[in-house]
């Protein structure tokens, strides 16, 4: 493995001078400086995958757009997080997420507490620019406490990551690929039959939409504990 010394790097975000530890990501440094970059698949405390492409930023001198969550900072780089080009791309990408599956907000348990819905407000997306794809998935309500509705899943893989990285169970993973990709338990077994699931419910709490929810809540009632993971990791580190 290559060892790198931790130093400090200075660069610019939106014309503002910022500094960060040399191994930081653009998103981390932006957060430290109260510069907001919209994110969706990112969740503090989990690994970054750069899958949703909402946090794309522009780097001066490069034609490529880079996700802020995985992009490492470089000395002297000039990052832009708020350009017309980015707005256009983000809006189209968000349209694609809405169009991919069936997010009927009005009848969703997470209505009003949904990160996808919030993103439509933040990005000013009031209608999908792309046609809706109709793709039906079976709902798994076999577990006594939780429900998995893949029709509302955006494949952010937070559930997969939290189960593997924080709970250590790796009960979730992705199955198939492309548009058919789903999150599953074990060998696509019903949730209740999963040998690996500990029923800890972390996946439910980190799910940004109504795809994973608690049983017994009705529309608009599912409020998730967003800071659960960060608190958990802090507590663990304190014990050591």
């Amino acid at each position, binding site marked *: 493995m290559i060892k790198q010394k931790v130093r400090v790097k200075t660069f610019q975000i939106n014309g503002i001078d910022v500094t960060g530890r040399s191994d930081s990501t653009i998103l981390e440094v932006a957060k430290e400086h109260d510069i907001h970059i919209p994110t969706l698949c990112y969740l503090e405390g989990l690994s970054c995958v750069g899958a949703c492409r909402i946090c794309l930023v522009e780097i001066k001198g490069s034609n490529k757009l880079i996700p802020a969550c995985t992009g490492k900072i470089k000395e002297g780089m000039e990052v832009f997080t708020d350009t017309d080009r980015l707005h256009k791309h983000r809006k189209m990408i968000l349209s694609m997420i809405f169009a991919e599956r069936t997010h009927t907000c009005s009848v969703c348990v997470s209505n009003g507490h949904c990160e996808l819905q919030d993103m439509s407000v933040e990005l000013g997306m009031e209608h999908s620019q792309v046609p809706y794809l109709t793709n039906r998935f079976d709902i798994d309500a076999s577990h006594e406490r939780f429900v998995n509705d893949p029709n509302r899943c955006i494949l952010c893989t937070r559930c997969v990551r939290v189960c*593997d990285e924080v709970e250590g*169970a*790796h*009960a*979730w*993973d*992705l*199955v*198939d*690929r492309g548009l058919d990709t789903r999150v*599953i*338990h*074990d*060998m*696509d077994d019903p949730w209740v039959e999963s*040998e*690996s699931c500990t029923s800890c419910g972390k996946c439910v709490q980190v799910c940004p939409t109504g795809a994973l929810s608690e049983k017994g809540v009705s529309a608009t009632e599912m409020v998730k504990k967003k800071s659960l993971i960060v608190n958990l990791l802090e507590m663990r580190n304190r014990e050591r």
Partner: protein
Amino acid sequence: MSAPTDARYKMVERTMKKLGYKRSALIESLHTAQETFGYLDKPALKFIAKRLRLPLAKVYGVATFYHYFRLKPKGEHNVVVCMGTACYIKGAKEILHRLEKRYGIGAGETTEDGKLSLLTARCVGSCSLAPIAICDNKPKGKLTVEDAVENIEKALS
């Protein structure tokens, strides 16, 4: 889970042993399992997961990601229609449609009597013989729609 008594598991075990039971041996083990069993059923996948100490979900995720792996048994006879570009522009689509109609199954499916599986390939790399189909492991190149049907009729009879 008790160790499967089926002697064929030894083949899979050998591959895993050769690769030191490392987690990275997963895909190679799946290949061996498919070669040995003809397809990957859940007991075989579970066996590999246990031996390589991998989560079940991960093994299943990998097995379904790669389209070379089959999770269902193949038919007695198999026809793979190549859908690569060269074959496509020389009429592979029509061949596939005709076969789908003739046998009442879609690509990737097996007839109810288990006699015939109709499969497609992304490109079998024999573009100079386009359009090509592979009937029971024998490549049949420069096909016409009629040839294709005839070849299968012959195999099935």
